[in-house]
């Protein structure tokens, strides 16, 4: 079984407009590598040039921010729900 990954709307163009995709891997790093294979280009939107997760994007496993778990080494299990949550500023003036 794969892990469900929720894709935020600014990145959905890269996932064929899907808001949820599934990916395989035992931790976040593997999951995102698998996602890049399935949806090329996604990685560059999530990671910066130095290979770190971008600071305006947070990743959650279920309700928990991976920065407070083991970062990209945080393990994922089948049926876990991974969310990519970017900063959004809009209030609409």
């Amino acid at each position, binding site marked *: 079984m794969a892990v469900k990954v929720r894709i935020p709307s600014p990145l959905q163009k890269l996932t064929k407009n899907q808001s949820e995709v599934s990916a395989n891997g035992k931790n976040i790093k593997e999951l995102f590598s698998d996602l890049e294979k399935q949806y090329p280009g996604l990685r560059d939107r999530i990671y910066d040039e130095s290979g770190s997760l971008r600071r305006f994007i947070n990743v*959650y496993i279920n309700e928990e*921010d991976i920065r407070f778990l083991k970062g990209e080494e945080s393990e994922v299990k089948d049926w876990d729900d991974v*969310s990519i949550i970017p*900063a*959004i500023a809009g*209030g609409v*003036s």
Partner: protein
Amino acid sequence: MSSFTEEQIYRYSRHIILPEVGGKGQKKLLESRVLLLGAGGLGSPATMYLAAAGIGNLGIIDFDVVDMSNLQRQILHGVEDIGRSKAESAKDTIKSINPDIKVTLYKERLSSENIYRIFKDYDIIVDGCDNFPTRYLVNDACILTGKTNVHGSIFRFDGQVTVFKPKDGPCYRCLYPEPPPAGLVPSCQEAGVLGVLPGIIGTLQAVEVIKLILGIGKPLIGKLLLYNALDAEFRQLRLRRDVNCPVCGDNPTIKELIDYEEFCGIARH
């Protein structure tokens, strides 16, 4: 305020009969001071419900004028307000709902120069602004002055709401330490937004403000409420204070306000 007038008892009767509010709570609402950043998409429903609820002192910051394209979502304003100051238009709407409310307008752009002067008269800040520079400025000013920030933001069909209460929970920089670089985050002007969405998110902000004033329920401190209109789904994520946060962490490096340039999305008009 010493006691209610008969008209006030009648006006607020549906609040007063709620044990969680009561006469005491209603008095707290009438004595409270809430500042709304922006009389736009999020500020519209928040302002109208807070006025109706009897928040006694409302401040509104907005230097923009009403445009036809605002009316798809900014329910404070109507056709006859096109070309008028949004702040003035908001004041008229508030007064038409509840003449009890004392309204103070700030027709200026928020900056490090004026933010302390404006914030000092308020207990709670409702952040419904539309750009990252202001978000970070507001966050830092709230941390440095100890004000609670009820944060709402929207994008296309997605909304986020949370409460940043200094010392009791994380701040915006604990979540996102630095603003995104130019061009990586599209703005609502480029991407569009469902007109009803700010109605939902701004209304949730109003609920949080009232809960905070009354001290009831569980405010969204340390919790990020996400709403997606297409999936009709609400979810909550846990937010934690980052001990390394540059502004509210154990060894803060930001001790003064920063005016970020317009670096992301597209420039305001």
